[in-house]
């Protein structure tokens, strides 16, 4: 099943531009930035991990369910840079700060096109803070995404440390 991804480009770009330019009023978006590491698996490899990644993520929660998200990671073994930006919708209890499942659509780019092509990719992500009292800034999670043009998947097991300022 293939989607005509060019149909999404103007829609998402307009939404992101609109949101980023709009002045905050009664309440500001909740901004978050994290440092993190991933065990990543690509379609070409059946085992996990096929690489380890180091990098960071950023997000702006605009409403109870809708967030803008982005990430930049460096592949340690194959020495690549991979980035993504898009929107994510929280599909679980929006008032639970310790567990959530997000469903989103991101545009991804990678310095190694053979590894990850430049394309739109829907993703499903799970985030969990295992010890909110002892380690409130540490979370773990998993993510699966599917490239709409290439039809290839990427899987992540992740650990994150939320930066104190956020």
């Amino acid at each position, binding site marked *: 099943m293939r989607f005509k991804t060019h149909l999404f480009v103007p829609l998402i770009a307009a939404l992101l531009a609109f949101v980023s330019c709009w002045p905050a009023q009664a309440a500001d978006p*909740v901004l978050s930035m994290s440092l993190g590491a991933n065990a990543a698996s690509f379609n070409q490899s059946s085992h996990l991990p096929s690489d380890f990644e180091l990098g960071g993520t950023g997000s702006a929660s605009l409403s109870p369910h809708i967030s803008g998200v982005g990430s930049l990671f460096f592949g340690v073994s194959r020495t690549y840079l991979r980035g993504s930006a898009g929107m994510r919708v929280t599909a679980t209890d929006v008032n639970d700060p310790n567990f*959530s499942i997000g469903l989103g659509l991101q545009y991804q780019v990678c310095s190694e096109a053979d590894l990850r092509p430049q394309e739109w990719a829907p993703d*499903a992500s799970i985030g969990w803070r295992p010890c909110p009292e002892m380690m409130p800034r540490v979370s773990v999670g998993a993510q699966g995404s599917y490239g*709409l043009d290439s039809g290839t998947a990427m899987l992540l097991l992740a650990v994150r440390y939320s930066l104190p300022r956020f």
Partner: protein
Amino acid sequence: MKFIDILIRLFGLSANELRSLLERVAASGTDAAGLAAEWLKKLDEVVAPEALGRLASEIVRELGDIAAGKFDGRKHPSDGI
């Protein structure tokens, strides 16, 4: 194609990939196997068509709020993944 149909197809693709990862972890017999099985159950709940239908109506309403400049952000661990 309706908005909800697009959501079901898009999120179904990514959820299938995440499901395959969690199934591998759940079958691994490691300490994380039980946790992965629990997450699998929750994932299946949120990508059920009726759950996505409810979510789609929330998205439409909240997009209107955002367009009106009304922000109401929350902390979501999955946003940082």
